């Protein structure tokens, strides 16, 4: 469903009508539960921006550095620190939100040579972690622990994505976060987030 370009009044009218219909009928119909994800105006095409050449350049491990970024890796999304939205990554410890195909990821400048890419949705309760959109509680990068801390309940994930601290409110939670391999050339400030 496309929505971001629609009149918000229409949306609320639509939601109200749905609510009315649902409230009248739903006690009898279990299928009244539904989910709709609305499209982003600026959504990138899904994954696989492959040029089909040079397998060597692709599939690096997380934090891969120094690859030949003139070569387009398979399944990678290129980025450059010249991009104003990524210029925060010029400093170690900073982070930025980045569209990797249809997914948002959090890029963290973990060291002079390395950029780490985390899935931006926290596996704990599915809440957004990144400084994406208008998230007012973005995750924080702990440079000493080399770990990212979700600000919603405190889940802490190391640079490999492993959970190193569960939320104090939910000690039974034990899931890793997805980490995307990154190929980054600190000299040019260019790189790729890989699948």
């Amino acid at each position, binding site marked *: 469903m496309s*929505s*971001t370009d629609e009149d*918000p009044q229409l*949306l*609320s009218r639509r*939601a*109200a009508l*749905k*609510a*009315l219909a*649902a*409230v009248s009928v*739903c*006690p*009898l*119909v*279990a299928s*009244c*539960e*539904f*989910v*709709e*994800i*609305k499209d982003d105006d600026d959504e990138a095409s*899904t*994954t*696989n921006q492959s040029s089909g050449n040079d397998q060597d350049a692709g599939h690096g491990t997380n934090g891969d550095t120094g690859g030949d970024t003139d070569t387009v890796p398979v399944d990678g999304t290129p980025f450059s620190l010249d991009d104003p939205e990524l210029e925060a990554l010029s400093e170690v410890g900073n982070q930025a939100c980045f569209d990797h*195909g*249809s*997914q948002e990821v959090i890029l963290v400048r973990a060291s002079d040579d390395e950029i780490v890419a985390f899935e931006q*949705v926290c596996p704990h*309760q*599915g*809440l*957004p972690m990144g400084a994406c959109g*208008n*998230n*007012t*509680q973005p995750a924080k990068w702990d440079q000493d622990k080399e770990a990212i801390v979700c*600000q*919603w*309940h405190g889940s802490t994930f190391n640079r490999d994505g492993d959970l190193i601290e569960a939320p*104090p*409110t*939910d*000690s*039974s939670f034990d899931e890793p976060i997805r980490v995307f391999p990154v190929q980054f050339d600190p000299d040019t400030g260019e790189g790729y987030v890989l699948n």
Partner: protein
Amino acid sequence: MRSMRVLFAISTLLLVGLAWLPEATSLPRMSATSGAPCTTCHFNSDGGGLRSEIGWGTAQLTGAIDHEQTGLSVLSDRSTNRVLDWMAVGGDARIQMARLGIPRETVDDDGETVTITPDREIIPMQLQPYIAIMPHDDLTLHGSYAAGPSSGEWCSTVYAGQTCAQGHLTWDPSPRVPTFRAGLFRPSIGMRHDDHTMLTHADASRPRPTVIPPNYAEVGVEASYQPRHWLRLDAGAFQPDRLADAVGNPEISEATTAAAYLARASYFPRFDFGPDKTFYGWVGASVYGDVDNHFRADQTFVGMGWLDRGSVMFELAHLSFGSDTERRALNAAGILSVEFTDWLVAEGRLEQATTRIRDVDDSIQRRAAVAGLQFYPVPYLKLRPEYRITDTDDWTMAQYAVQLHLFY
């Protein structure tokens, strides 16, 4: 015959209840439909928490089946919740079945975009005993402890700004002078709803929008004065440590002079149109914020209740965040409740939260439509089936939830 009717009513309601939806809600309905202040039924002058003898006694009589019919008459043999002349006890326990979290899209191994709906979970959400000690007629010491039943920890707070232990002393010498509260307690902000998901205290720009969480409390003092039955004034001063956490702005509590203030005025008009036609109104406004203006909540509310029939309420809130107002939220809620009997109440509400961020053109919106029942099958037990549609700029989700609430 009566038991057949009761059985039929329960089966029907359970069927309806099982099909109904998500997170549960509650309203200051009791006060609005009876015209009685919260303190008639609760120790807390702002409602909620430990019930007074009248509140406890009313609860004892509220249920589709009374205790004698269930063979549990031992539970109704007591005439008070006082365990000693000077001590009363009580508690709330709630279990909720709902889909928690937000839906999202991800890309699977085949490169396909898939929608992930949050799992339906059953969570123990509240386990909170209360105690009130009355060393003197004018003094009450009130304490409560919200354990973390879902985490297994004794103290576990799900939202920033929550507290586990709360306690305050109330001095209430006579109706002619103000009542004072001092200690760690919730300031009397706006209307007090017992559903923390209400959008009036929300910031739509947060994926989990609640700003003022359940069991929010600050150390402070508050005076409440009700010089006439139709007028109540509240004023308080607090140390805003938990507000800083709840809002996510440490500056709120950093300064040595950091403080929060509260002011609320409520007018309770009464309209008498003859037998069985008395309506109780509730109009008020409150302001709560920190003295350095990092956060401020202005709220107005208006409601009307008809004894044993129902109530309708509206609340409007304007929240501002940041010392130079980086973010503003304008939130509204309309709530309708209809009482079929004292043990069955239907509720519906529509809510809208809009956040504007400075220098950002588009506002961020969130809406909710909720319909539910409050059903008391037996005294001290409430079932709250609910259907909820939540609509944000990024997704829409409709779900059922049921809450089981045991209270004493």
